[in-house]
């Protein structure tokens, strides 16, 4: 069976859910091997094995951590050239897409980005033109490379004990030509990851200011949800850009999306309109967000949202 390479997305050895989704998809295509960059593989092997990674290739050197994306791409290419995999799966994050892009050039391989599904025949499904079309596509040349969006599959365990192989890579001069001179980690909110969350509660222009996001966060916490924001809110500096939902931010596809004070411009719709259920609160009855909403309340979000939060907390008990 063909070996399928899965690039592991992790934070200091804690494997992210997206990787377990990729391992699940990889088993449709062949036998998954995980590719692990950086320190902490000892803590990750158990999880990788639980979701079917037969092998774990590890590259852990100073270059892979000290430079921008390029060394990771070259390391992935080096492993792919060694094992001649049937396909390569990478998380569709900004870093993942860049690693895949560079690898596609080096390997002479076709690339499909932002897949929301990949079937056993290697046919990928994509959501395009602000999610107004569904496209299926296949790689026709070289080793197929897919970047896959979060929530593309339900992780299914398939316990194995992986063999771990350390790989040494020599990098090109260009790969190490950029240097990371400073890293400022973001404060952790303790809420679920925006792109992975089952419920997302978002605020927009109608929230009116940074302090207004308090009611959005309170509702999110009552539901165990992630917090998102429209571009109007992040551009105004009311909420960090990392939480922007939309064309130039994150694409989310939760089971429930709750939009407050968001008009629903195309830029925002592009990031959320594949959500299963959409609920909106807006002062303006003409706001386009209501055209997408399964349930909407025309009213002041500062009255409706806190009342909803109280109801949620009340009904939990």
């Amino acid at each position, binding site marked *: 069976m063909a070996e399928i390479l899965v690039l592991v997305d992790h*934070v200091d050895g804690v494997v992210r859910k997206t990787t377990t989704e990729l391992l699940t998809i990889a088993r449709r295509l062949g036998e998954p091997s995980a590719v692990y960059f950086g320190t902490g593989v000892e803590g990750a092997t158990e999880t990788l094995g639980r979701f079917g990674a037969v092998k774990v290739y590890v590259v852990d050197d100073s270059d892979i951590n000290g430079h*921008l*994306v390029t060394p990771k791409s070259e390391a992935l290419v080096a492993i792919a050239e060694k094992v001649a995999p049937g396909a390569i799966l990478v998380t569709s994050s*900004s870093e993942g*897409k*860049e690693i*895949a*892009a560079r690898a596609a*050039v080096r390997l002479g*391989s*076709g*690339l*499909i*980005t*932002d897949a929301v599904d990949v079937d056993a025949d290697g*046919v990928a499904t994509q959501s*395009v*033109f*602000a999610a*107004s*079309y*569904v*496209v*299926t*596509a296949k790689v026709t*040349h*070289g080793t197929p490379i897919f970047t896959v969006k979060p929530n593309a599959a339900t992780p299914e365990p398939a316990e194995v004990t992986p063999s771990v192989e350390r790989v040494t890579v020599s990098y090109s001069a*260009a790969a190490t*030509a*950029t*240097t*990371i*001179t*400073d*890293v400022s980690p973001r404060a952790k909110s303790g809420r679920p990851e925006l792109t992975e969350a089952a*419920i997302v509660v978002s605020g927009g222009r109608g929230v009116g200011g940074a302090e207004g996001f308090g009611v959005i966060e309170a509702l999110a916490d009552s*539901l165990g949800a992630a917090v998102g924001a429209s*571009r109007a809110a992040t551009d105004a500096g009311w909420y960090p*850009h990392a939480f922007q939902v939309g*064309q130039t931010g994150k694409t989310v596809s939760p*089971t*429930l999306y709750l939009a407050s004070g968001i008009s629903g411009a195309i830029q925002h719709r592009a990031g959320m*309109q594949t959500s299963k*259920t959409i*609920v909106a*609160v807006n002062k303006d009855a003409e706001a386009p967000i209501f*055209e*997408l*909403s*399964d*349930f909407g*309340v*025309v009213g002041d979000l500062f009255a*409706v*949202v806190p*009342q*909803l939060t109280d*109801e*949620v907390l009340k*009904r939990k008990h």
Partner: protein
Amino acid sequence: MKIVVLVKHVPDAASDRSFADDLTSDRAAVDGRLSELDEYAVEQALQTVEKAGEGEITYLTMGPASAAEALRKALSMGGDAGVHVVDDALHGSDALATSLVLAEALKKLEWDVVICGMASTDGTMSVVPAMISERLGVPGLTLASSLIIEGSTVTIRRDGDDASTTITGSLPALVSVTDQTGEARYPSFKGIMAAKKKPVTTWTLGDLGLEPAAVGLSAAWSAVASVTKRPPRVAGVIVADEGDGGVKLADFLASGKFI
């Protein structure tokens, strides 16, 4: 300081975009425009030259005849010249072929830095800048939310999900910028008039030494099998808040077993 800015003419994202019979993006069906995300790259190039007090900006695009509009729009914001790679054989090129053509065009131009947008608003893959950097073997500093070019050094800030990172590289280099770099300027009337007189050079594949068989739909390394229009969402129940909007919303969420 010589800067090349990559620009793309795209179907307007605010219009009802669709596919042509060969399953490529239908450019004729809707109005085209300079990709909004490229305007941020134009702005950063203009600011870099303004700060340095000298410099030359060339815009490079690849696309059908109508793509010249994107060059004119960029030139109306400022800058000096345009280069348009146009050839019937380019129709349907994938990101790999696009990066090949743009890399070959860049080899014929003089530059210290190439500035790109973070993605196009039609394909939205966000991979062409990385592919060009890979092909040219120059440092790629991607997804900059701020950008400083001083002497022969470029420094960017990249705002990732887990951290904000400062990255430096030496010129020549390629940079891609996000919409966080700051609002792009509007062309002035004077700028629009001046743009009409700025030189735009047209290159074919032959001028770049590329074979038609290396690009276009038939040379693409991935193939679209089907396109299906997603049924539009149907609006559900919309109620006016009469003091119990939150309760009604909670009832709806409970009916969907969300609470």
